[in-house]
């Protein structure tokens, strides 16, 4: 009899090839690439090495994809072309501009059925943790590791300590997975899970949709964790079945049978345990330059807030969160750029006009098509928002979309770091509902008050 194991341990054991001095060489099932992979390809070319498993490697243009042609630059064009050349030279299927499968890597790959339970998944991007929503062990890596996976389809890793975050209760009306993630980060801090693999557990987690699980696992990296994982269940299987590249027929049945064995064993022990009652979560808003600098929309900036962060943000300690005026708003990113996120924002915006510029960038071409077909895109346009093309857009100031220095942006993305949305930009993270509400009033606003009036 083996001792009770966590889901992470089960996946780890199935992927261990060999061990050396406390590290294990792991088999990698899926390797996702974006424009940032150019360093790793350069290394492959210098070393004259082949790419070992092109059929397990998939590329996508997202970080430099312009959300509007008018904002495309020489750099965005070069970076996208470079990815296309690298992937085609090495025989990798890559979703480039014009490909209907294209989108932000953490939105598009699950849509295609490439992300599956029980797999080891890597990408040269820290938000790879998103794919853990499917019960996969997924983590971000740097360029040297990307080159290592390209050349060997393996990676050296030390077994991480595993932290269980158990969430009981029910998320109150008007709060979302984004608020839950921000509340957890507020509780344990941005270094609270450093080096850990996080496994989510509890009834509040089981009740989340796949989209919500992705939002939560996406933000897990902001706790310092290496990965975040929700054990796969019927919600996962139902979402995946019939996706273009998911297993079919007998393979599907065998896969589901194996996936069912990956739930954590009764009595499995965790290196750390954190508990939270979802019922205590309110709509959350970051006020500083780190995701842990967060407060409920009904609260205030703490009296002991870091002066450094406050001066960058142009705010004062003790100020009421919902008194903060904003200059612009952004809905999108791998955290909150999925159809359900756009639907939630549209419910608030429907029939109203925005008070400040709002940019909406769907997380993928598939999301964009569904939003167009269902009339969501028209709701945004009618509200005066800009309906952009899919990509990382305003989440990161590198594709032509930027917030100007000193400007304040309400954003559904995941990082409020200094300069993240552009040099000197001030970012407030919140849910899609909350960004929509802020866009309507021009200041940070409790979306629950507005949604009471809105018709679904």
């Amino acid at each position, binding site marked *: 009899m083996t001792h009770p194991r966590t889901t992470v341990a089960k996946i780890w054991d199935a992927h261990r*090839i*060999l061990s*050396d*001095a*406390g*590290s294990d*060489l792991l*088999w990698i099932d899926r390797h996702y690439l974006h424009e*940032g992979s150019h*360093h790793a390809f350069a290394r492959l070319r210098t070393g004259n*090495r082949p790419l070992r498993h092109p059929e*397990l490697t*998939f590329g996508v243009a997202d970080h430099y994809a312009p959300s509007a042609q008018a904002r495309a630059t020489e750099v965005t064009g070069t970076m996208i072309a470079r990815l296309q050349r690298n992937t085609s030279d090495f025989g990798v*299927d890559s979703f480039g501009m014009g*490909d*209907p*499968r294209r989108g932000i890597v953490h939105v598009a790959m699950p849509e295609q059925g490439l992300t599956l339970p029980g*797999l080891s998944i890597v990408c*040269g*991007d*820290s938000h*790879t943790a998103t794919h853990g929503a499917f019960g996969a062990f997924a*983590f*971000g890596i*740097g*360029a*040297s*590791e990307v*080159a*290592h996976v390209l*050349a*060997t*389809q*393996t990676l*050296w890793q*030390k077994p991480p300590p595993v932290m269980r975050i158990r969430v009981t209760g029910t998320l109150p009306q008007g709060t979302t997975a984004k608020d839950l993630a921000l509340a957890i980060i507020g509780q344990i801090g*941005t*270094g609270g899970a*450093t*080096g850990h693999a996080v496994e989510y557990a509890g009834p509040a987690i089981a009740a989340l949709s796949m989209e919500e699980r992705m939002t939560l696992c996406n933000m897990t990296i902001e706790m310092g964790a*290496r990965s975040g994982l929700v054990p796969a269940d019927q919600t996962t299987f139902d979402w995946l079945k019939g996706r*273009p590249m998911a*297993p079919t027929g007998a*393979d599907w049945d*065998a*896969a589901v049978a*194996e996936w069912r064995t990956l739930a954590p064993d009764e009595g499995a022990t965790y290196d750390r345990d954190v508990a939270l009652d979802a019922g205590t979560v309110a709509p959350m808003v970051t006020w500083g330059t*780190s995701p842990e600098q967060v407060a409920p929309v009904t609260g205030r900036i703490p009296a002991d807030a870091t002066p450094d962060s406050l001066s960058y943000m142009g705010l004062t300690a003790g100020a009421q969160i919902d008194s903060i005026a904003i200059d612009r708003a952004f809905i999108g990113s791998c955290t909150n750029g999925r159809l359900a996120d756009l639907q939630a924002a549209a419910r608030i915006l429907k029939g109203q006009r925005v008070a400040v510029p709002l940019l909406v960038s769907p997380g993928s*071409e*598939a999301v964009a*098509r569904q939003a167009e077909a269902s009339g969501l895109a028209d709701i945004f346009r009618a509200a005066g928002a800009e309906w952009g093309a899919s990509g990382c857009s305003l989440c990161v*100031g*590198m594709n032509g979309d930027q917030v100007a*220095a000193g400007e304040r942006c309400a954003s559904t993305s995941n*990082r409020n*770091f*200094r*300069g*993240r949305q552009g040099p*000197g930009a001030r970012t407030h993270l919140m849910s899609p509902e909350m960004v929509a509400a802020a866009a309507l009033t021009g200041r940070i606003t409790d979306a629950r008050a507005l949604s009471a009036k809105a018709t679904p």
Partner: protein
Amino acid sequence: MTPITTLTGTAAALPRANVDTDQIIPARFMSRSRTDGYGDQCFHDLRFDEAGAPRADFPLNDLAQAPGILVAGDNFGCGSSREAAVYALLDYGVAAVIAPSFADIFRSNAGKNGLLTIALDAETVQSLTDMLTDQPAMPADIDLPAQRLTIGPRQLDFDIDARLKHRLINGLDDLAATLQDLPRIEDFEGRYYAARPWAIPQKQTAAQG
């Protein structure tokens, strides 16, 4: 990789927690090639104002040259997986960072490129920071085989992962070493996919939405 045994230089403090990768190297510089060098971009927006003038409030701007050994705050290198953060520090002249804790991916990237990351308890880091704030650019050295760090009058032992230490001292490249194990990897692959044919992605005949 060049073998690393001892590092000698000066030490300086950057007493801030959560120095994220966007602060180490802003995303807008990420399209550069490795060979172009990243030293000028290191801490760019902390070092320079919008007009490109050095900021008075950035402690490292007072130094004649970049510190070889940087003493920083908690959770250093948090944020994105960009390895350029490590390139930037190395190109700027930093060979080792000392902090109470590091972000995971940053630390792993550092190890691959020979940037030492030394975690010491918060109290010790604070006392080093205080010492270096009083007297910036103190002479310092690191003896990797002995796992000993010297800054001015202070001598400290540090921990390092055994496998990483071996690789750094011998200048071994991870990738070349792994390729020696190719037969064992191939053997694993055979067994793995025999048991899990479903784990190979379905081929697509045409692009589908």
